């Protein structure tokens, strides 16, 4: 059986957009408070992004989607699906997509729902949007991966749990800045990381997080995709992996025979942290910002629970025209104001008053 997934009608990315909040918490702030700086030489990243007190997954999805719309130049009324992938939807019941589509002028002729699959909720939305457009159910669909992730104070995840993400308007290949060559998804039941209903912070099954979760799933997703498309690592100009820290994507790239140069542009975690559902897709927008027509780009997410989505995109000459219509991903990376742990704790509701 053929495992590769391809829509009936050729489909691609018409517009893409990123968003990262302005504030950064250096990992040293967490280390100094919780570990007396004892782990200062082994920090997983330099700093992570923190949303302002008035930001959430909905507001951030709106800005990323506005950037995607600017690049696409599409009439919002022609977008027939709005799917936001996140593990930090502001409401338990009321789709983020309703507010997003009202504000962007997409309503009322649309479907709008939320996706949840830990850190791969964004690429899950891309798969669905591709199918929706590729089957002809709608001309365009909007897929967003966005998070304001939270780690338990003092926990290993607190160093990296960050905020940001990206939005993509999928549409017919003739209009695309990057055409989808094929995709593949690999999913198993793995208890590496989860959050029960009504709990504020997630739990992680330590012994599962590395080999059995991240590495196993991405390895299978990427090697199957490449085998089925008959591709070698050297066929890709760039590769972007889910990035929970600096070490994991570097090791994964090496295992799969990708060079440091191939993953460089899409590796943002050291400067902005792990933006969960936003992480691989945000890196992918940075890769698109630097891509040349004809380049092939690999995107591979990982979501705990667990699974990985792998995509191969081929960049078209349309990218040159649309790139500068919205702020680059790097411009959001460089827009930064460092904050101290106290302000972070207040804004992120870590100080409990009742």
């Amino acid at each position, binding site marked *: 059986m053929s495992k590769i997934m391809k829509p009936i009608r050729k489909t691609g990315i018409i517009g893409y957009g990123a968003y990262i909040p*302005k504030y950064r918490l250096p990992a040293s702030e967490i280390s100094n408070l919780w570990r007396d700086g004892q782990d200062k030489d082994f920090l997983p990243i330099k700093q992570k992004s923190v949303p*302002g*007190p*008035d*930001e*959430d997954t*909905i*507001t951030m999805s*709106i*800005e990323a989607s506005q950037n995607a719309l600017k690049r696409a130049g599409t009439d919002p009324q022609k977008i027939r699906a709005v799917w936001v992938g996140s593990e930090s939807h*502001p*409401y338990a019941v009321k789709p983020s997509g309703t*507010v997003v589509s*009202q*504000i962007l*002028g997409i309503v009322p002729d649309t479907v709008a729902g939320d996706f949840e699959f830990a850190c791969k909720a964004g690429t899950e939305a891309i798969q669905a949007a591709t199918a929706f457009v590729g089957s002809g159910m709608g001309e365009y669909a909007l897929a967003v991966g966005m998070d304001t992730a939270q780690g338990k104070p003092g926990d290993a995840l607190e160093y990296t749990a960050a905020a940001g993400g990206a939005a993509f308007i999928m549409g017919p290949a003739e209009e695309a800045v990057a055409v989808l060559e094929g995709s593949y998804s690999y999913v198993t039941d793995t208890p590496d990381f989860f959050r029960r209903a009504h709990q504020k912070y997630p739990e992680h099954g330590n012994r599962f997080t590395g080999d059995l979760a991240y590495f196993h799933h991405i390895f299978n997703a990427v090697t199957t995709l490449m085998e089925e498309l008959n591709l070698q690592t050297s066929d890709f100009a760039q590769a972007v992996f889910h990035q929970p820290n600096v070490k994991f994507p570097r090791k994964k790239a090496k295992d799969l025979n990708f060079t440091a140069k191939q993953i460089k542009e899409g590796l943002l975690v050291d400067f902005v942290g792990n933006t969960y559902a936003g992480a691989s897709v945000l890196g992918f927008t940075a890769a698109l910002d630097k891509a040349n027509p004809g380049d092939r780009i690999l995107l591979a997410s990982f979501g705990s629970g667990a699974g990985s989505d792998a995509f191969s995109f081929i960049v078209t000459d349309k990218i040159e025209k649309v790139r500068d219509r919205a*702020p*680059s991903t790097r*411009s959001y990376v460089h*827009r930064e104001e460092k904050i101290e742990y106290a302000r972070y704790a*207040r*804004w992120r509701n870590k100080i409990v008053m009742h």
Partner: protein
Amino acid sequence: MDIPRYWRLRNQRYRLEGTECIECGQRNFPPRCICPHCKSDSLKSFRFSGRGTVYSFSTIYQALDTFDKDIPYSIALVKLDEGPLITTQLADVGPDEIQIGQPVEMVIRKIYEDGENGPIQYGYKFRPALKE
């Protein structure tokens, strides 16, 4: 603000939709039924670009409980590029960083949460214009 009122005004607050006078061309925000300039009642909906400059501002240190999480925050009169002066909260900017005449742009932010169980209200704020 109560839920029905917020719902009724959502396209103003979400999309900066005001009015343009068909007779004299004056643009207004919030939307009007009668043109304040020429008294005409033939008006059409007009969506503002969301760009403007800071006309004046003030910083709030004592707020209602609803806005406690945000203090200190600044309120500004912003002169929109299309003419009208509007009152808005500023985002992503400390009180010492704001300057009169500074270019600003509209963003969508949380305005407030109606307690632990109520709705979250979103709407426009303005932040220093992104450079690029």
